[in-house]
């Protein structure tokens, strides 16, 4: 079973070291809108896209509460369950803000996750590319492919 799926290659090394040292079960790196950049660990433990969307939502709503309190922002959020703990942390890179959702079990702790999370943030910041040069994305005649794709989705 592949232990990692990396959409952006520069995240691989800092993420691999973090999971090894912290003993986390799964770590997702994503945009504040919940789009996954990289995942490392036992992905079968959770539906990754749903977890990313929910993690981003938790971080968004707690940041909103922080704003209401006049507090700049919570840097990390932690929720300890019976068997698993969830840890959410922000990380600023040249392209903007990223979030990490860490799921850890009984063989780790929030202390270990926090200890090595600071190192992960440094690693991601060092590895992150500058803002990607803007380039046109799709061919002008993309509509045909879009229609075909949607039609097949809906079995039409």
């Amino acid at each position: 079973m592949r232990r990692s799926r990396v959409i952006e290659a520069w995240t691989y090394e800092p993420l691999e070291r973090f999971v090894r040292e912290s003993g986390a079960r799964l770590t997702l790196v994503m945009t504040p809108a919940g789009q996954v950049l990289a995942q490392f660990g036992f992905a079968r433990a959770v539906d990754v896209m749903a977890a990313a969307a929910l993690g981003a939502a938790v971080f968004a709503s707690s940041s909103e509460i922080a704003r209401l309190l006049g507090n700049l922002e919570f840097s990390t959020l932690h929720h300890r369950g019976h068997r698993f703990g969830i840890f959410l942390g922000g990380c600023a890179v040249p392209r903007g803000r990223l979030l990490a959702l860490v799921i850890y079990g009984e063989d780790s702790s929030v202390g270990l996750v926090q200890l090595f999370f600071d190192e992960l943030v440094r690693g991601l910041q060092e590895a992150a590319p500058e803002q990607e040069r803007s380039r046109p994305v799709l061919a002008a005649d993309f509509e045909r492919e879009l229609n075909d794709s949607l039609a097949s989705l809906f079995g039409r």
Partner: protein
Amino acid sequence: MIAPLAEALDRMTRVGGVWGALLVAADDGLVIAEAVMEGIKPAAIAALAASLARQSGIASEAAGAGTPRFLHLQGAAGTLAVMSAGDGLLLVAVGSDEMNVGLARLEMLRAIEAAE
């Protein structure tokens, strides 16, 4: 910090060779209270001491020795002492390789009795 706890940590830091004393939540590996010298990182001590205590506990049970009460990790240039204070708490002392572990251990026992 409630007085007896602060006092107990302060007394631990007076033991020869001690760089810092902490009260740590064992499950979470988080600092509850600390008295450490400049340059000593309490968060790292708490996380690693708690993890070492957990692993040692598993090994001790596996060896039929039961639940650990006190750990003494000796390094070539430093020492870590960890005592279970009950209720998921750990008392931790970190110091040089010259640390008087016997005395640190006594101060920890005194701190636990004072808290009871």
